[in-house]
């Protein structure tokens, strides 16, 4: 039985790793943006709070990308073009399909976060206590879960062709408005006020709290908000999936 879960995850990993559209957007986007905003524009002398701030928020950006693309685009394509039906009519445990997707998307995100950490430490003068590095990493990877569920919702609603655009239209603005690209305090007031409506904001605030950066609210409050978002997305996805099954067939 364990073998099914292992093989499902291995297959999902190989599928995504060989798919350039996925591996490039997942790895390149966060690293490239970090180079532009985090390295090129940051001051170069010594450790600054800014450097630490950006390593946390670009980590959140990375984990959002790997999960939203894997779930949002992956499920929209596999559902819309018939592959999910092949899987569902086989004895595959349905949980294996979603768990494999989640584990692999988080693994990809984790790899990109480690790359970011390496870049930050080497080029960005980011210095933190080992426990802080570890906690930041752990919080970001665990924070992937609500974004997996958001991806599941997108994948359940979007068509196979429109899914990549849909994901980008949610991913990019959500990252910007959540304070992942440029520090939250530099954002316009209106965006700052609306940000608590975005899960990206809450994940970033948790990662920032670990850095001892100034944050709004408490870690517990942000974690609760992420759980709430996860549940709302899960409910939406569930409704969308059960509705999608009753399409008309000849």
């Amino acid at each position, binding site marked *: 039985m364990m073998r099914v879960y292992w093989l499902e995850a291995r297959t999902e990993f*190989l599928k995504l790793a060989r798919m350039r559209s996925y591996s490039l957007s997942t790895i390149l986007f966060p690293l490239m943006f970090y180079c532009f905003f985090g390295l090129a524009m940051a001051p170069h002398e010594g450790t600054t709070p800014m450097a630490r701030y950006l390593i946390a928020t670009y980590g959140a950006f990375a984990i959002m990308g790997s999960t939203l693309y894997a779930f949002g685009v992956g499920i929209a394509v596999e559902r819309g073009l018939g592959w999910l039906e092949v899987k569902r*009519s086989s004895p595959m445990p349905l949980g294996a399909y979603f768990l494999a997707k989640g584990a692999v998307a988080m693994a990809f995100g984790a790899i990109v976060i480690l790359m970011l950490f390496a870049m930050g430490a080497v080029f960005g003068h980011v210095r933190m206590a080992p426990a802080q590095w570890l906690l930041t990493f752990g919080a970001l990877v665990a924070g992937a879960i609500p974004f997996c569920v958001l991806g599941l919702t997108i994948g359940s609603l979007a068509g196979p062709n429109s899914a990549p655009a849909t994901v980008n239209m949610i991913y990019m603005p959500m990252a910007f408005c959540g304070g992942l690209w440029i520090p939250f305090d530099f954002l316009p007031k209106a965006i700052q006020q609306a940000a608590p409506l975005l899960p990206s904001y809450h994940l970033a605030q948790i990662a920032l709290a670990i850095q001892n950066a100034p944050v709004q609210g408490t870690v517990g409050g942000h974690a609760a908000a992420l759980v709430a978002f996860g549940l709302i997305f899960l409910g939406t996805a569930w409704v969308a999936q059960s509705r999608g099954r009753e*399409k008309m*067939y*000849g």
Partner: protein
Amino acid sequence: MPVAELQNVRKKYGAVTALHGIDLGIERGELLAVLGPNGAGKTTAVRILLGLTEQTSGRAAIFGHGPASHAAKLRRGAMLQVARVPETIRVREHIELFSSYYRAPLKFEQTIAAAGLGGVEKRLFGELSGGQKQRVLFALAICGNPDLLFLDEPTVGLDVEARRGMWKHIRGFVAGGGSVLLTTHYLDEADALADRIAVIDGGRIIAQGTPAEIKRLGTSPAGSGSGGLEDAFLSLIRQNGNSIEEVLQ
């Protein structure tokens, strides 16, 4: 007892009735072909038997189990029409994964041989020809060593040679004692493979019998055909009240 059956199954999608109470049974070791024009209800019937959608009323069973149950899934395989299969996975990886879903799957080499995939095991799915792709889907349907196989238009879009190749593998499965439900648009395919044919139109089964019986049933007095299955099919559908244009679409 039939290995799979539908008893008085009705299926409504909102106001539209796709199946008006059909009865259908597949006996052990037989290949039943379901023929019908587009929109006749073939795919709906197959989807109910695969547990992908639920009937509005009536009974559906696979080896006495509910079609969506794990017990039913373990004993059947299905080859569905699928527009895109993950392309960056190798043939061997696809087959190993699907084999792991079953309790007593075929050995990898047996699956490869039964689907005629020798030599392409290491290719990515996206690098295969159309015929090879269909044979991979066939391999995924039989790799669990099922007793019952569902083939939904298995040779659609294939050239003659690839179609004949697929027929050979389907016959191989039946020769091994398996039962098959085949839906197809190609009447020569039904003629060549089926022990029994069910003609479905407008959500009803309008004729059932061996290929020879269907040809006899469908021979209309004014028929100008040569007595082939195609003429019989057209004549049956016409008697059922469809215009020839609808049928040929």
